[in-house]
């Protein structure tokens, strides 16, 4: 009985998701197999299970059993298969741990088969039937909880920002440097990730560029996206969208985070069927604009180490952000060493799709990251820059696991290092310093 419930829930979700792009992805594959090497899992171990077409067939088998002429009447002819609970569990594990939704196979498919779309559909089926990784659900629910009751943490957050503001003032040598929180009428709402490391460097950059900005109280990460759960993803995104509308900002800038950027820039307007009254861009695009407009006093000799850049899949292939990081890097270092391949053809680091937050799949993740490790080693880089938090976490783990001896950093960190700042003045940091945080 329980079996049927989980399976039927999963199948209902599949039916509900059947739109034109998903139907095309389910129907068009000719099983030519040229996608194999596009997948970093396959590059890592050459196993059949890691050929993207094989993976997608797992879902297609179930679809055909329901909808295809042969699938219904002569299932073996098209390898159609009834969905049972064991198969559902296997498929769920595959969708969450053996595909990072990097789109490399789609770009390499002669038909343009959108395998990540199918894996997202599978994730949604798994989530609806209680087969999704518990941790992703927990992280998504915690984010939703924060949105329901911001008072729970707002004061703590504002107090933390006040501390950070002092650090900012010391860093940029300007006692008037400010980090405001949810200031109405600011031009820009910056949405960071949890923790100071994605707030302080951008704050210094905004200060240098004389940007009129304010800080969101929410974090940009959206674990609903990884679950393939549009309802939860929308709820998480709506925290920021409502905040931006209330503050009447002209632009929302998302921290260096791949999925957060892709989901807010590209997915959210589709989820909400609405053109927001503000633009959403990645911090990477904005920093590149500042560089091009000459708004940052940069000295590329400040970063003399050999540096390579890892393209986040969500930024490059999903959001078209592959030139901007190079614009920035060429302004902050003279020693950029590109990986091969890079940019739009870059390999996933192995941590995408939420995998980095799932300790139960650590072994798979380390194995799938091997092609990236090889790429990095070949560059001889001492510093690996990534504009995505998931990538940085994965690269950090790969660094330890494979003893790469590199330093992992964000683009903003390098920019700040390259900024010619007035000598850090000894900023008085009294405890009762007047701080402009929040309303």
């Amino acid at each position, binding site marked *: 009985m329980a079996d049927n419930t989980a399976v039927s829930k999963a199948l209902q979700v599949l039916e509900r998701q059947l739109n034109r792009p998903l139907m095309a992805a389910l129907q068009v594959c000719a099983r030519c197999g040229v996608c194999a090497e596009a997948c970093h899992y396959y590059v890592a171990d050459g196993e059949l299970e890691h050929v993207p077409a094989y993976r997608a067939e797992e879902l297609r088998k179930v679809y055909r059993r329901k909808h295809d002429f042969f699938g219904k009447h002569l299932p073996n002819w098209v390898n159609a298969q009834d969905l049972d609970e064991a198969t559902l569990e296997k498929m769920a594990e595959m969708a969450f741990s053996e595909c990072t939704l990097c789109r490399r196979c789609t770009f390499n498919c002669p038909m343009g088969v959108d395998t990540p779309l199918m894996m997202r559909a599978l994730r949604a089926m798994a989530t609806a039937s209680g087969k999704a990784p518990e*941790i992703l659900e*927990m*992280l998504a*629910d*915690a*984010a*939703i*909880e*924060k949105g329901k009751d911001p008072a*729970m*943490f707002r004061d*703590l*957050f504002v107090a*933390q920002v006040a501390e950070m503001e002092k650090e900012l003032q010391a860093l940029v040598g300007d006692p008037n440097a400010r980090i405001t929180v949810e200031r109405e009428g600011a031009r820009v709402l910056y949405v960071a*990730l*949890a*923790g*100071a*490391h994605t707030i302080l460097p951008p704050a210094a950059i905004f200060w240098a560029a004389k940007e009129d900005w304010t800080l969101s109280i929410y*974090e940009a*990460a959206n*674990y609903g996206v990884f679950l393939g759960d549009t309802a939860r993803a929308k709820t998480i995104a709506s925290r920021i969208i409502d905040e931006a509308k209330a503050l009447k900002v002209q632009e929302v800038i998302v921290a260096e985070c791949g999925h957060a950027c892709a989901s807010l820039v590209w997915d959210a307007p589709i989820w909400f069927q609405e053109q927001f009254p503000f633009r959403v861009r990645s911090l990477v695009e904005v920093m590149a604009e500042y560089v091009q407009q000459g708004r940052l006093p940069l000295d590329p000799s400040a970063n003399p180490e050999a540096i390579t850049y890892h393209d986040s899949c969500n930024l490059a292939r999903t959001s078209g952000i592959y030139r901007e990081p190079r614009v920035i890097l060429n302004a902050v270092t003279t020693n950029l060493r590109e990986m091969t391949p890079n940019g739009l053809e870059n390999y996933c680091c192995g941590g995408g799709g939420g995998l980095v*937050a799932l*300790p139960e799949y650590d072994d798979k993740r380390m194995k799938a990251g091997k092609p990236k490790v090889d790429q990095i080693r070949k560059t001889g880089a001492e510093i690996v820059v990534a504009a995505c*938090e998931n990538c940085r*976490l994965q690269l950090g783990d790969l660094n330890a696991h494979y003893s790469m001896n590199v330093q992992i950093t964000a683009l903003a960190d390098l920019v700040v290092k390259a900024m010619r700042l007035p000598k850090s003045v000894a900023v008085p940091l009294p405890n009762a310093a007047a701080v402009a945080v929040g309303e």
Partner: protein
Amino acid sequence: MADPIKPDQILDLKGLLCPMPVVKLSMAVKKLQAGQTIEGIATDPGVMADIPAWARTSGNELLSIEQQGKEYHFIVKKTA
């Protein structure tokens, strides 16, 4: 706010960035018996918002959370 509670387990989350403190904490709590307590020590300020939210959704009880210098200490009691 001196804390009289002596936790059953101490979890070192220093140096971990979001979402790892929450991930590690939830895994550790899973292994506890109901009624046991765990103290987490993190350096990522994000925990000050994330841990209370996690506690609410997971149904565990957050007994205390506070900043001590550069560290964030919190005690969670497993309820079920």
